[in-house]
């Protein structure tokens, strides 16, 4: 009687399942680790982040802007983004011609597997990244490097192809262990998931898709961190992340502003807003007869209501952007802010011969003032920016068709159509402006997507990156920004604040001005190793 046997077996299994389920429910929350909300001293933190890194190996780009937790760079950024020595004992000595950088290294540092850190590891890291077989998408950032050589066990010398003033900013790049990573395939080897670094934390477990667990490195050369366990829980869905924060599962989380608002009155939780260099801007391609016209560019620049975008789209968590550099940055050219002025915009268009035509859309010599604006499909924030921009443009008689598509579709149209682009790296104005504006980079990969061409800007950009003199650099970037205000080949809209909600249980929590990318490295936990547990 097979079926009856089946059914009986099923009944037994059902009883077991029921027992298991009861056992499962019977101990709610009595063995929670660092979870439960509220204040009080805690030596562990659980952070909810949206995106999981693909790799934890610096050789493929992990932690390239610093704050990697598991690794150290030669240098690091402080909360003001100033450079400080880390694995180097001091800031580099730069030669007169700006072509060689010498870093003396600490002698008392070991990797978490016990191997001592030496100049060979630095050479290995940089040479591997620059190797053409290494699939590191950010290797272009090290383009100025001609060679890197060991000067004995405890110093390295970089030789550059051309003088490059912001080079030291790039050396926050984490240093990998040659001993641990040297023998394997850099693109797929186990070092990607089992990194060995010198940093304040060591990886204890990476349960892919669930969480990354870090434990304090008791032998850290900078002193063992007080926060002993750091767990990065990977939760892609914003609502689920908010829910798990509310349930006490998480101590901190990255949240969009509308969800963060719901935590305003929650006891023991504080909302932290970090300014960022993460801008949203519309590219105005030079080769399009409408967007290439300086009058149209200037009119759009004045027609757009940035304050309203910050209020309505970002719910106040952001700032108006006038160029790639945030207004709060010391590099920002004071006085280049432009007020919302649709009347002046209309006047500029009239003056340039763009006459109002059918349906209120302007025309000049038979050319209608119209163009297409793309945004990447699924990006709600960019979609809202694009729609608001189109509506502001309509008010001054410019007709913008907003369309969405995947990057593959958009890539092919960058020369004629506008796109709602984003990005930003706060460390140096060269990182912000050069790739965006330099003529030779027009249409080169994802650089200068607007095909911006302005010899006056090029000259100052060259000066800014080659000059070793701080005052000269400041003047050059000020000139770039003023020139860009005169001929705005991009309409910069907003800089986006990154919003975090976290338990108020530690001292020393600060924020940096953050890049586009945030989550594991950037966020209020950028320096979790320096936090003090409140007693």
């Amino acid at each position, binding site marked *: *009687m*097979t*079926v*009856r046997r*089946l*059914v009986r077996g*099923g009944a037994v*299994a059902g009883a077991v*399942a029921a027992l*298991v389920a009861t*056992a*499962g*429910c019977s*101990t*709610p*929350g009595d*063995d*929670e*680790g660092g*979870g439960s909300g509220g204040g009080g001293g805690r030596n562990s933190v*659980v952070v909810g982040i949206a995106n*999981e890194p*693909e790799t934890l190996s610096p050789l493929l780009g992990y932690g390239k802007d610093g704050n990697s937790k598991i690794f150290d760079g030669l240098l690091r950024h402080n909360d003001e983004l100033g450079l400080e020595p880390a694995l180097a004992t001091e800031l580099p000595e730069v030669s007169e011609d700006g072509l060689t950088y010498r870093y003396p290294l600490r002698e008392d540092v070991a990797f978490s597997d016990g191997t001592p850190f030496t100049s060979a590891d630095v050479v290995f890291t940089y040479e591997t990244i620059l190797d053409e077989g290494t*699939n590191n*998408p*950010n*290797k*272009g950032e090290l*383009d100025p490097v001609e060679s890197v050589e060991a000067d004995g066990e405890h110093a390295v010398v970089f030789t550059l192809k051309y003088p490059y003033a912001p080079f030291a900013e790039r050396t926050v790049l984490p240093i990998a262990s040659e001993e641990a990573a040297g023998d394997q395939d850099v*693109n*797929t080897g186990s070092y*990607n*998931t089992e990194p060995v670094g010198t940093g304040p934390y060591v990886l204890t477990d990476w*349960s*892919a*898709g*669930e*969480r990354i667990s870090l434990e304090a490195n008791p032998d850290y050369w900078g002193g063992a961190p007080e926060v002993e*366990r750091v767990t990065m*829980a*990977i939760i*892609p869905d914003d609502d*689920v992340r908010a*829910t*798990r924060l*509310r*349930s006490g*599962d998480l101590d901190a989380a990255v949240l969009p502003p509308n969800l963060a608002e719901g935590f305003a009155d929650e006891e023991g939780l504080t909302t932290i807003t970090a300014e960022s260099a993460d801008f949203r801007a519309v590219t105005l391609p030079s080769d399009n007869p409408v967007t290439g016209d300086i009058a149209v560019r200037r009119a759009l620049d004045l027609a757009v209501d940035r304050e309203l975008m910050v209020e309505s789209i970002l719910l106040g968590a952001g700032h108006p952007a006038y160029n790639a550099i945030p207004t709060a940055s010391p590099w920002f050219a004071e006085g280049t802010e432009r007020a919302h002025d649709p009347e002046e915009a209309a006047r500029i268009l009239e003056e340039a011969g763009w006459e109002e035509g059918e349906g209120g859309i302007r025309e000049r010599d038979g050319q209608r003032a119209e163009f297409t604006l793309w945004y*990447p499909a699924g990006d709600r924030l960019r979609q809202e920016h694009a729609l608001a921009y189109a509506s502001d443009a309509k008010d001054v008689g410019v007709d913008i068709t907003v369309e969405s598509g*995947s990057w*593959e*579709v958009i*890539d092919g149209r960058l020369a004629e159509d506008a796109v709602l682009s*984003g990005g930003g790296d706060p460390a140096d104005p060269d990182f912000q402006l050069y*790739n965006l504006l330099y003529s030779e980079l027009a249409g080169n*990969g*994802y*650089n200068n997507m607007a095909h911006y061409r302005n010899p006056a800007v090029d000259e100052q950009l060259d000066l800014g990156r080659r000059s070793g003199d701080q005052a000269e650099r400041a003047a050059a970037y000020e000139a770039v920004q003023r020139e860009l205000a005169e001929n705005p080949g991009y309409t910069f809209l907003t800089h986006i604040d990154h919003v975090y909600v976290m338990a108020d249980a530690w001292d020393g929590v600060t924020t940096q001005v953050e890049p*586009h*990318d945030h989550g594991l490295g950037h966020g209020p936990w950028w320096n979790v190793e320096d936090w003090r547990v409140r007693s």
Partner: protein
Amino acid sequence: MSAPWPAVARLVGRRLLAAVPVLVVVTLGMFAVAAASPFDPVRRYVGDGSSASQETLDALRENLSPDGTFVEQWWSWLTSVLGGDLGQSLALRQPVSQVIAERVGWSLLLCAVAFVGSVLLGCALGVLAARREGGWLDRAVSSLSYTLQAAPPFWLALLAIWLFALQLDVLPAGGLTEAGEDTVTAGSLLRHLALPAAVLTISQAPWFVLYVRQGVADALHEDPVRGARARGVSERTVLLGHALRSGLLPVLTLVGTRIPELITGALLVETVFSWPGIASATVRAATSTDFPLLAALTALSALAVLAGNLLADLLYGLADPRVDLNEM
């Protein structure tokens, strides 16, 4: 009744042979789709907000893009798979075999618990509902089943988190262990498994409920049942011994056809609950057009479906002596 083991072995053998052309077609189709796909793996590899130069992009394309037509790509993939090498995942910077080995166990656990749970729940509720067709219990169970059938699993998952984790605070909202713990203990595993497994069970159970209810209800009107009742056999024996037995037959075929749905449901549930299974890898592979990983996962799901069908046929054959395994 002795089990027809030789026939079973022959059926399994035949199915294994039949699986070969199916897998060939499925994986070849997957490579054809990949070749026709407008998505650019290099763009995905580089990610958003990157300022990679043309030189970097060209170098990456050189390293990442497979050579030749899709048939050649498929052939070189196939030969390396037969040699035991599943290739390298672009999106996760790991060998594909490692990606699968690390995650498939957790997915299997979740799916198995949910599957067994939904079959048992389906049988129990189906029999109860069929016993008094049109009664209040039947009406409640049936309408609930139709409602749940229409409810998307991720919505159920969010609802379950809201209720059990937030309002009642009795079960964790996600993950495999307490967020701050590394070691997986049995107790904490059960607590964390409870919600995702329950959601998956509930999203799959309606099919079984409705099938069992219909099967049992029909069987109750058949001659053998009437005969048994006339002979004064107890209602319990009539219901479980006669009606359920014949009512279960259509359910056994359902077992096979529900496997793809189970996998799809598991993908959504795993994502919502941060369950470290194969789902996050699948979503990653698909959105970043990671074809080596996608090919392996596609083959794996095809195998799961074939295995489900085989299981269903075997059970059918064993349950119904009239069915000849040699003819399946």
